[in-house]
């Protein structure tokens, strides 16, 4: 079949079973837009800013596990997409970003809207391709999807010069040719010897700890992970990226770990003798001071990316492979093992953990007069029965959501963990709601973050997306203010959000429903009312306590066992 470049692109996306393209047109991609116009199997979602397109595709990918697809023009279209590409890269999200490029013979001439897209995106993609001819377009697209979705997933940019999509020029299209890349072969099964050694160590533990990250979610390995945890009945903690891999409402779950994790999770990490790290990368927000990290532990680390192993923390038994496959092999071996777990020791360990849990580290001062942000998240959890897809922006609200919304399923908690990109929440929710039109999708945000991609309210109207926006409006860049309070003697330099818009009227002007809630007594009823509006986007502007802080906290340079607790708890402990 002879097709033009634009048609090849559409056909390739169809072959990849792409449902949505998140994009924004411009000169270099006009041929492609013309091809999009002439078909109706793939739906194009027109955003209002290219950053929005990348986050929306990213949210779609995180919620579904399928690659998100973005289409932007050259120059400013590509540069606007960079933040979203970097966000996806840091969290290993499979995406294919198609960027227009100037006509091939003009490359390098500072042509109108030319940027070196390959150069600019190189450090924040898994890989990128500059399409070199019309003939190589289809093969390049196939490679891009292959690289984006296999091994440790990640964003892949395909930069397409305008002339290769021109309608008049055609070439043979055959997508059935298998991808051949001698320089790319992601690992699959783990080394059997290493697995055997690991199982032996794991079963001999007296104070074990299971620590899992985004890899379990992205690798769709939650089922085997749960089986693994339940067979062992060892304490389980998840990273910010790993929430939902193990049910948060299960007694075996000791909460999130890390900077704003629970006291019990961090203390158990510090005290463990065997640490089982699954699809996690020992991020600095997790380890605290590395020198004090799990001082007595022998560490087993399962990860699909060999470069993640012993990067920041040296491990004893590394296993490189697909997390799900490795866990299944381990589950079989635990079943068949002739050795017994030392249950008495484990019970003793649990009783120690229960003592830490008794600290009730997520306690906060309740109030009848001012809305506590934690209270809003608690009510959100109740009203949505813990079953919403919750996207988040970045700041205190993100941490409260992670602490107080108890995720029982994977792929429900959608946030920018690695890059910490403010502006992520709303566009990400667009991607999720499109993927799951009948599910509840909420975006938790702050008055600062929401303004970074607020223009996407318009996209939500165009595509009838009934997202519920939970704005924890503390009139501060709360997370920044908190650090300034703790580390800069309350010199609140530029963390005050002055001249805020009237969010209710702003939302209304975009054609949605806005609600202002400033009394604790109204929180629940407002939420009931909002979630009852099944086909409306509702912006709930909660005026919250301005000076609330996120506790507990591992401050910079401190170890896991040196958490700063809520002041009230310090009073109690004293």
């Amino acid at each position: 079949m002879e097709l033009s470049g634009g048609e090849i692109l559409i056909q390739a996306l169809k072959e990849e079973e792409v449902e949505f393209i998140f994009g924004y047109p411009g000169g270099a991609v006009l041929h492609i837009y013309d091809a999009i116009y002439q078909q109706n199997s793939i739906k194009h979602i027109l955003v209002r800013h290219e950053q929005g397109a990348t986050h929306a595709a990213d949210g779609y990918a995180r919620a579904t596990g399928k690659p998100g697809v973005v289409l932007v023009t050259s120059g400013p279209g590509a540069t606007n997409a960079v933040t979203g590409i970097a966000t996806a890269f840091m969290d290993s999200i499979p995406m294919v970003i198609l960027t227009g490029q100037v006509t091939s013979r003009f490359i390098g001439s500072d042509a109108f809207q030319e940027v070196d897209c390959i150069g600019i995106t190189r450090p924040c993609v898994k890989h990128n391709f500059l399409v070199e001819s019309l003939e190589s377009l289809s093969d390049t697209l196939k490679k891009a999807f292959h690289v984006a979705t296999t091994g440790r997933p990640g964003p892949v940019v395909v930069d397409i010069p305008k002339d290769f999509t021109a309608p008049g020029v055609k070439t043979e299209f055959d997508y059935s040719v298998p991808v051949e890349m001698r320089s790319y072969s992601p690992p699959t099964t783990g080394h059997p010897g290493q697995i055997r050694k690991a199982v032996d160590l794991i079963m001999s533990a007296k104070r074990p700890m299971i620590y899992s990250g985004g890899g379990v979610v992205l690798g769709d390995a939650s089922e085997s992970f749960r089986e693994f945890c339940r067979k062992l009945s060892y304490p389980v903690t998840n990273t910010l990226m790993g929430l939902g891999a193990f049910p948060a409402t299960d007694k075996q779950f000791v909460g999130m770990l890390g900077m704003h994790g629970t006291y019990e999770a961090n203390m158990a990490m510090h005290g463990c003798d065997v640490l089982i790290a699954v699809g996690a990368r020992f991020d600095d927000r997790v380890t605290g001071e590395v020198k004090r990290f799990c001082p007595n532990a022998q560490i087993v680390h399962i990860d699909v990316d060999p470069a993640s192993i012993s990067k920041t923390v040296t491990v004893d038994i590394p296993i490189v492979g697909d997390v799900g496959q490795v866990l299944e092999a381990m589950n079989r071996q635990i079943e068949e093992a002739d050795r017994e777990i030392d249950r008495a020791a484990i019970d003793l360990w649990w009783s120690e953990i229960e003592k830490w849990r008794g600290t009730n580290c997520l306690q906060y001062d309740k109030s009848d007069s001012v809305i506590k942000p934690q209270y809003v998240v608690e009510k959100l959890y109740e009203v949505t029965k813990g079953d919403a897809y919750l996207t988040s922006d970045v700041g205190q609200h993100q941490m409260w959501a992670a602490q107080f919304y108890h995720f029982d399923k994977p792929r429900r908690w959608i946030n920018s963990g690695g890059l910490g990109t403010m502006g992520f929440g709303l566009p990400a929710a667009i991607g999720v709601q499109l993927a799951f039109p009948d599910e509840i999708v909420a975006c938790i945000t702050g008055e600062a973050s929401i303004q970074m991609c607020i223009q996407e309210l318009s996209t939500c109207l165009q595509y009838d997306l009934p997202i519920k926006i939970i704005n924890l409006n503390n009139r501060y860049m709360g997370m920044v203010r908190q650090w300034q309070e703790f580390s800069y003697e309350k010199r609140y330099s530029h963390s005050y959000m002055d001249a805020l818009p009237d969010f209710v009227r702003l939302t209304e002007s975009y054609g949605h429903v806005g609600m202002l809630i400033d009394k604790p007594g109204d929180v629940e009823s407002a939420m009931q009312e909002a979630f009852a509006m099944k086909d409306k986007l509702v912006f709930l502007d909660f005026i919250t306590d301005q000076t609330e802080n996120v506790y507990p906290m591992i401050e910079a340079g401190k170890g896991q066992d040196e958490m700063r607790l809520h002041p009230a708890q310090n009073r109690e402990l004293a």
Partner: protein
Amino acid sequence: MRHVIAVLLENESGALSRVAGLFSARGYNIESLTVAPTHDPTMSRMTIVTYGTERVVEQITKQLNKLVDVVRLTDLTESHFLEREIMLIKLRAVEQSRSEIKRVADIFRGRILDVTETSYIVEMTGDAEKLDAFMKSVGKDNIIEVVRSGATGIARGEKSLRI
């Protein structure tokens, strides 16, 4: 410790900048980097000389391996290997230093490629240490210009880096 890493990579535009970018983005040291196509024109061979703790060098090889354009690599320093670098050096050669420089170049098995009334250009191959030693012997004051290729390396014996 100093490590010499040999890399086979796709002979594609942008492959070199991926490697160079990796070193600068992750703050790895780089002493020299050479690259040219091999007998298989679809592939380039690169020799990277770097130094760092064992842990850092392990990360370097892992991160290099992760680059999609990298086909295969080996840390040559893990076993016996040959290392050669070529240097072209323009030296001031006047009066009595003329013969002295010629003599030193002979000792180091250098070849004189170009002669004028006041200068020589000497070609020399060897490992980095030898080239350094030659420059030291002729003395800083006599050196007008130096160009070095950076090290190329290959494993001795049966061991090989190929696909």
